[in-house]
């Protein structure tokens, strides 16, 4: 029996694919699982595998051609089989049904009565039909609704589809011995993609300095004693970095391939750890905000981030990033730049250390920070001068009001 070969959704976000090359040619015999073609998706080159066996009778989309997911790209059939009807009918591929053939073997478990597979939850416009409860469940589980089949009216994704989803995913997870394979969530995928984009192509270099925090901490204690909202060390660092960047615009910039965009305003992106990932909400115009405002904003943003309630505009548009692992007892670390930003400051813990002051050994509270710089934007001395300003301001915190 003839097997239609469809363009498959090889990534959860893939909408169309380009045939990079045909591995099998017309007339070649193919077995189930053979790689038929290499397909370029929005993210990578993937293999399109045969889901039937026979002869690759007809290639409908030549190498270099693009078609939407679900589009008919080839026909596998017996050598003498009449495929004229199949080839002629290629204008109307059963999009919903064919889009995810790979998932089919994994999810036959639920025997609940299902309405006929309508158009699928995905409408031509790209809108996903899902109930509010299903959306909420999916967002908390980090599931992409676009990967699910809906069993509600008109293919709407409802609660039980989301609840059934991990079962389908679990079926794909190999579990043996001492490791566990977990299919990354969309968030984890985004993190992975963004960071590979960073460390790979971005030429990083790192600058470390140790800052005496005695005065900054005294200032913090004094301010907190006033009692009108608490200020953290991190809030002070945000404020100081923002003010320092106003003096070092060369570090407050985006690499844009054919140009560098320098910003006048400083929008600090602060890394917040959330369940299964991290996100960087942005404190806008931090240089212009009072310490108290920054403290309130950073706390609110972190809370909303952990509740996964941030709106896109709340975590995009940063011009420089801060990552603080001090509260987790890390003395010093390097952070990966969040492109297109050109720099990120990794902040360690404040620890008491013996240091030499005026020729005598005394115990001081010290903090180590490491700046990662994109060498395409920031040169060594440039970064060093900026870091020097940061250190001076933290050591003389009165500079904040200067």
């Amino acid at each position, binding site marked *: 029996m003839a097997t239609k070969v469809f363009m498959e959704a090889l990534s959860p976000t893939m909408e169309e694919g380009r045939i990079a090359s045909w591995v099998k040619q017309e007339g070649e015999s193919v077995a189930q699982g053979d790689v038929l073609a290499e397909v370029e998706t929005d993210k990578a080159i993937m293999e399109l595998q045969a889901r039937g066996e026979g002869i690759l009778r007809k290639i409908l989309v030549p190498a270099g051609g693009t078609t939407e997911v679900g589009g008919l790209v080839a026909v596998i059939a017996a050598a003498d089989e009449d495929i004229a009807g199949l080839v002629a009918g290629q204008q109307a591929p059963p999009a919903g049904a064919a889009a995810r053939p790979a998932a089919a073997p994994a999810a036959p478990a639920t025997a609940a009565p299902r309405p006929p597979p309508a158009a699928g939850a995905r409408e031509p416009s790209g809108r996903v039909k899902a109930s*509010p*409860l299903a959306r909420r469940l999916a967002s908390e589980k980090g599931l992409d609704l676009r990967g699910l089949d809906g069993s509600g009216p008109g293919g709407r994704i409802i609660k039980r589809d989301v609840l059934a989803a991990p079962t389908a995913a679990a079926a794909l997870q190999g579990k043996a011995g001492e490791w566990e394979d977990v299919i990354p969530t969309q968030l984890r995928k985004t993190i992975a993609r963004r960071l590979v984009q960073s460390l790979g192509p971005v030429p990083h270099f790192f600058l470390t300095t140790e800052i005496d925090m005695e005065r900054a901490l005294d200032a913090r204690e004094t301010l907190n004693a006033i009692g009108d909202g608490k200020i953290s060390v991190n809030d002070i660092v945000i404020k100081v970095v923002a003010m320092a960047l106003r003096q070092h615009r060369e570090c407050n910039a985006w690499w844009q391939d054919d140009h560098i965009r320098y910003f006048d305003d400083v929008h600090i992106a602060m890394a917040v750890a959330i369940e299964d990932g991290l996100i960087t909400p942005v404190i806008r115009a931090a240089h212009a905000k009072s310490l108290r405002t920054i403290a309130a904003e950073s706390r609110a943003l972190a809370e909303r981030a952990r509740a996964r309630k941030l709106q896109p505009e709340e975590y995009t548009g940063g011009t420089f990033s801060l990552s603080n692992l001090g509260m987790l007892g890390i003395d010093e670390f390097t952070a990966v730049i969040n492109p297109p930003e050109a720099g990120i400051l990794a902040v360690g813990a404040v620890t008491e250390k013996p240091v030499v002051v005026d020729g005598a050994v005394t115990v001081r509270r010290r903090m180590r920070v490491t700046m990662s710089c994109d060498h395409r934007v920031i040169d060594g001395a440039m970064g060093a001068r900026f870091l020097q300003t940061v250190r001076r301001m933290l050591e003389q915190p009165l500079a904040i009001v200067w």
Partner: protein
Amino acid sequence: MSKTFDVIILGGGPAGYVCAIRCAQLGLSTAVVEREKLGGVCVNVGCIPSKALLHAAWVANLVRHDAAQLGITTGDVTLDFGVAMKRSRQVSEQNSKGVGFLMKKHKVTVVEGTGVLQKDRAVKVGTDTYTASKAIVLATGTRVKGLPQAGLELNATTVISSDDALFLERAPASLAIVGAGAVGVEFADIFSAFGSTVTLIEVLPRILPMEDAESSAALAKVYKKRGIAMLVGAKVKGAKVAKTSVTLEVETSGKTQSLEVEKVLMAAGRAMNIENLGLEAAGVQLSDTGFIKVDHHLRTTADGIYAIGDVAGPPMLAHKGSREGVQVAERIAGQTPHPIRYDNIPSVTYCHPEVASIGLTEDQCKERKLDVQIGKFPLSANGRARATNETDGFVKIIRDKQYGEILGAHIVAAHASEMIHELVVARENEYTVEEVDLAVHAHPTLSEAIAEAALDSMGRVLHT
């Protein structure tokens, strides 16, 4: 007249006649076999006439107790149950005729008589045999039954059923109602308003035992104020039936008391109309609980025979039966209807104030160890309720703590029966409490209490 139809439906109640209309809409030739009146219990001796009497009861209470406060003074108020009863009969007649009209309009053949199943998808009515080429649908319903084991055999004079109560010419001086479910509670409302001394007797620990405990308590408080006696956790141990009175032996918490009343209304339990239906000959089996055994497509154990409504199992509600009728009609026509969500069928008691609910009660949530957040809003804080002098009751929404899913909702309010549907729609579409709040509610309405209860479940109630 052709004696072969695509579909033959036994029973013209709310399950059967709605099934017939839907079959006709889908182009199936359809016959309904009915031995009494079209519309079934619902239209003739159930939902509809009782609502007519409840309305009369509401007006009676309004005129007697509230009118003066509203600046309306009446002379001596005379209550005549007979007149109210006759009007309720007219309403029933009109509705039954309406069903007949609908059958005509949709070209559904109505066969008068008792249908008996035969082999090979045939039905015998009297001497005529009708055959169904596609399917037979059993929708014969249930009827009231007495408690013969306690000496309370229905006799239509002193020990009466709800059917009899609907035809009384006058309200009895005293009335004991056995069973404080929806039926018992509604009749207590009616007869108390018409001057009877009413005692509700319930074997379970509270009136409306299937409702949320808070709903039961709220209604009990109102009934107590109205002078309706309620014996809960009470068992009828024996009865002496005399010509014009009945003496009941009622046991509550180990103590037995005797209660002499003019009439006893049996409002507990219903019997299935399946005797002599020919189930065995046709191969239709019963389930362990005594209902007709059906699968989730409402197919019985006999090929081509479906069962809907009361005979197919609980909840025994007209709207559940009607929906099953639609479901089965579409399936017979080859469609794949969306499955019925049996956990999302509203339950309503039309007493004053009304009690309505959807989903789980608080106790059920506890039994299932669900992590819930409860939002509640009293009608005493609702402007509209104050304006109309109907501040008894509340709206209670039980939501899942993590996702905001509406697990259950309970309303005690003057118009709870109309209000509950907002939450039925919400649950059917899987809206969370947030969507309920986001929908702007008109002011001033009782429905605002729903939005407030949703807000309260999120800790953001505005008006308390």
